[in-house]
């Protein structure tokens, strides 16, 4: 399907029949964009967001089909319904963009993020950090006598929660991948 043929979404089957496209209430949407992995394609997507003043809350990108040279860009963005519709339409206009999916609007989806957190400390704090990591099912991927590196996967909210708990326990560094997301079901 052509990139310009917006998935039934922005036009007559659009959400605006259900809620006003022109409401000023901001919503957070996760958008998956399948693009030809050619030079500059990420710059095009990012340039679109900065040039038109849209928000990027998180962005991840990697080639997902090495033979077909397709990359998947997952963008979490916040805006009014009208802005979200514009973002999708503008993304669809980019020539190397093959598909645009609004995972938030198209039904339920799973979202995961991976984070690495470095927590330094000794004695009690160290034990407490380990205990909490266990509750959050975070793994220890590196350890010294005074530090851990935890790996956690989960929704961004879960990662946020874990990071908040680690802060008083000696969180010194955090690296997050940003969100990867897929629609549920077939």
């Amino acid at each position, binding site marked *: 399907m052509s990139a310009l043929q917006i998935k039934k979404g922005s036009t007559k089957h659009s959400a605006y029949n259900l809620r006003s496209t022109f409401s000023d209430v901001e919503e957070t949407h996760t958008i998956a964009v399948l693009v030809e992995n050619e030079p500059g394609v990420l710059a095009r997507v990012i340039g679109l967001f900065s040039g038109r003043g849209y928000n990027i809350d998180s962005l991840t990108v990697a080639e997902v089909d090495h033979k077909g040279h397709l990359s998947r860009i997952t963008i979490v963005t916040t805006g009014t319904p009208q802005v979200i519709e514009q973002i999708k339409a503008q993304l669809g*206009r980019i020539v190397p963009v093959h598909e645009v999916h609004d995972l938030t609007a198209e039904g339920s989806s799973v979202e995961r993020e991976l984070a690495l957190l470095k927590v330094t400390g000794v004695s009690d704090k160290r034990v407490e950090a380990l205990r909490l990591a266990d509750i959050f099912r975070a793994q220890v991927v590196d350890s010294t006598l005074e530090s851990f590196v935890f790996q956690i996967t989960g929704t961004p909210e879960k990662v946020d929660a874990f990071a908040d708990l680690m802060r008083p326990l000696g969180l010194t560094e955090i690296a997050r991948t940003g969100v990867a997301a897929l629609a549920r079901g077939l």
Partner: protein
Amino acid sequence: MTRQMTGAKMVVQALRDQGVDTVFGYPGGAVLPIYDEMFQQNDIQHILVRHEQAAVHAAEGYARSTGKPGVVLVTSGPGATNAVTGLTDALMDSIPIVVLTGQVPTFMIGTDAFQEADTVGITRPCTKHNWLVKDTAKLSETIHQAFHVALAGRPGPVLVDIPKDVQFASADYQPKQKAPTGHYQPQVKGDMEMITALVEEIETAACPVFYTGGGVINSGPGASQLLRELVEATGFPVTSTLMGLGAYPASGKHWLGMLGMHGLYEANLAMHGCDLMINVGARFDDRITGRLDAFSPKSRKAHIDIDPSSINKVIRVDMPIIGDVGHVLEDVLKVWKARGRRINREGLQKWWARIHDWQKVDCLKFKPNEGTIRPQYALSRLEALTKGRDRYITTEVGQHQMWAAQYLGFEDPNRWMTSGGLGTMGYGFPASIGVQVAHPDALVINVAGEASWLMNMQEMGTAIQFRLPVKQFILNNERLGMVRQWQELLHGQRYSHSWSEALPDFVKLAEAFGAKGILCKDPADLDDAIMEMLNHDGPVIFDCLVEKHENCFPMIPSGEPHNKMLLGEAKTKDAIGSKGAVMV
């Protein structure tokens, strides 16, 4: 059959395969191999401009007057950066342009080499798409793809950046037919359900209006034909944006004139008061809508546009139809006819009665002066003396542009070339050159302001060299008139830097280039002077000294709705509120 050839030869071969007959360009180090190939062939003519910005505007003039893509060839670095304004102009007005730029050799990219610029980076936001070709084997298919992208869907400018080593190296040439155009295939057929919904509204609307734009022109002459058929058959009034003039003939019975900031009273009031607005290939630009929350408050709105991102961008519409104007209008007509060609006759009659009342205001009327030429008079005379001729008009940007749109009538599409979206001073002269190249025997006139014209006046050299008899009709008010008008209305008549000092003697300037110059300052001499211009077989600079402080009306002040239009001087004081003043 594949053939081995150098990248430079491929460029020329690919252009030939694309049916290109003209390239506008300017040479330099990074494109020398391509220029060498241009030298050794006769199929494609090369028009040497005097500045790369002019090459792109000329290509725009060529494209807009023919419907074919305009082609530009320039060198790396400054050649490419000079093309940026033209690219942006073409992007805003959806004009198909293919720009080929030279680049430093691949092994020097990123080293700040002489005349290196990140051309694809710089032009990414001002092209529809661009490519840096690092491998000669990919060059021919990339050029073919570039033409496809420039023309497909909503047209626009594309750029192919070609490093010098890629031009020298050899590879197999891919002919046009074999080159994959990729997945980029915008939708052209409109949704039939939505088209039927629109037809249902056409059948019952009491106060309908067609609001047409550049999309009708871009869709091709067939779309204009279909629009005319639909307008005549339904009897609905029709107005157009600046970009769409000529799609419906100015002499047509249902024509309301241009709408928008300097549009006609009747057109804007029809937009404000309608109950069904049918937007055909226009994009609810801010020059059209005025204050958004007061825009056409009572209407149901249909929007036919090939670009899904134009739908609901600023104005919420009830019937979005994504597709090519020609295809959609054909289906609208088909469905409407099949359902019995119904319209709301009674409602329409009353609607026209109201429109006729608005038309009686005669918002463009003016009294010619005795001693000095009023710009409106100059354009009325130009219109009268060129009517019926095979005439193409380009313009610069400013008051003269708006007066040209108001006082000249366009009977056909592709006859009116003006910088709408970007409002680029310096556009008109090179555009007129591109138009004349495409139509050597036609009458091509650039309606100019003296300030805009100076921005690309070096193109006199091009006009002379290629014997292009373009007529430069300069409405010389010795002012940056449009800026001065805004300063008068918005900034307490403090005319900060809005006059044209130290103007050249345009007649002498023409003569210095080897062209004809004509000066006219008395209304009594105007007709003869215009005829002298028209009868001269060669480029002419016509210096028409006009009233210096004329304002352009009607005018919808920024931030105001359509029904708050200013008709003339008397009512202009304090017309623009502080909210409007922040807008452009």
